[in-house]
């Protein structure tokens, strides 16, 4: 069963994005229950691993965008296991705030590019986009981040 093989990957990913044990376990169950409910989601256009990467990212970004959830998560400091993910408590909060504010497509590529350190080809494989579209989205993301930096200055 996919849960047994890939569950830990989904859990780790969710902890990293949401920073909360409760929310991460909820994500694990939602992702796998959704797959059980609608197995046609996985159309074998990619591997099960990249499908679950995308599904988990999608779920977590939705949680961050949801106002009530975001308020709860923003109060959560870094998960004790977040250390090896490399983010300090303040960075965790800032990361979640920024991801929540990005348009959907940009939020997803931001996670793959900045957090997962994926190459263009890996992002294309995970999202199902062409490499050209990935390049376009990353270009838009960089523009967005530059403008955001100007506002902060």
């Amino acid at each position, binding site marked *: 069963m996919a849960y047994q093989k*890939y569950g*830990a*990957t989904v859990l780790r990913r969710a902890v990293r994005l949401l920073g909360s044990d*409760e929310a991460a376990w909820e994500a694990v169950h939602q992702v796998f229950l959704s797959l059980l409910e609608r197995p046609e989601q996985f159309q074998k256009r990619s591997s099960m*691993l990249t499908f679950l990467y995308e599904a988990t990212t999608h779920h977590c970004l939705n949680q961050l965008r949801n106002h009530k959830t975001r308020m709860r998560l923003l109060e959560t400091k870094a998960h004790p296991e977040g250390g090896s993910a*490399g983010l300090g408590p303040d960075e965790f909060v800032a990361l979640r705030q920024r991801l929540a504010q990005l348009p959907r497509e940009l939020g997803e590529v931001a996670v793959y590019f900045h957090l*997962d*350190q994926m*190459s263009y080809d890996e992002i294309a494989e995970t999202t199902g986009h062409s490499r050209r579209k990935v390049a376009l989205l990353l270009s838009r993301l960089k523009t967005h*981040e530059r403008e955001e930096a100007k506002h902060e200055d």
Partner: protein
Amino acid sequence: MSERRQSMRTEFCPSDLELDRYVLSELSPSRQQALEVHLRSCASCQAHLSEVERATQRLQHSYPTFTALHRKFRGQRAPASTRRARMWTLASLGVAAAVTLSLWWSDAMIKEATTQSNGLRSKGSLSFSYHVKRADHVFEGGMDEVLKSGDAIQFTVRTNQPGYLAIFSVDGKGTTNVYYPLGALAASLPSGHHTLPLSTVLDEVLGHERIWAMFCGAPFELEPLRKKLQAEGPGALDQKQCRSEVLSFEKRAPGAPR
């Protein structure tokens, strides 16, 4: 959106996706070999693998609950509040991991130690041995070797055909653990000689510990077999299309005499 791992990252560091593929044994043999060379010297990637290991241990203990949830889901989906309460319960599950740390030492150190002793146990096409790292000293472990809490051990396996491998242990308190691999399924292994990528730092449970290498022609799930080994003893590993080999050592406190 800066991140410490990013700042520590080199152009040779793999993405998280590739590291996960490594842990799940989904990389090609050549890419896996190249990655292992990198992992030996990259603290950032090693930290990532430790994180994956912790998540794996926590998840393995949640599996029965998810099965129950799955069964319930088939009939009637539980209300959101109920699901949330159940998830709280899952989140609060503590895991007393018998083994925790992952680290690597060089092939050269192991090779040197291998030439000094012969603790190899073999049967048919499966050979199974281990090396011990104590401070900066690496030596090959023999049958009933006296080891100490804090020693790190790393396993070596040789097979003449491809298959699926897992390593189980029963410690001095009779608790059964999975030493290898990290995931829920046995690791795919090509034929040849393999030093397994993860090593184990021995915990403080003292006494006689036995280690089994289970090698099968088909994939198998770890948790059901771990439970069977716990309940039934070594006979649980006598299965068709599988071979198992056992090693043992005596674990003592760091200050205890040999």
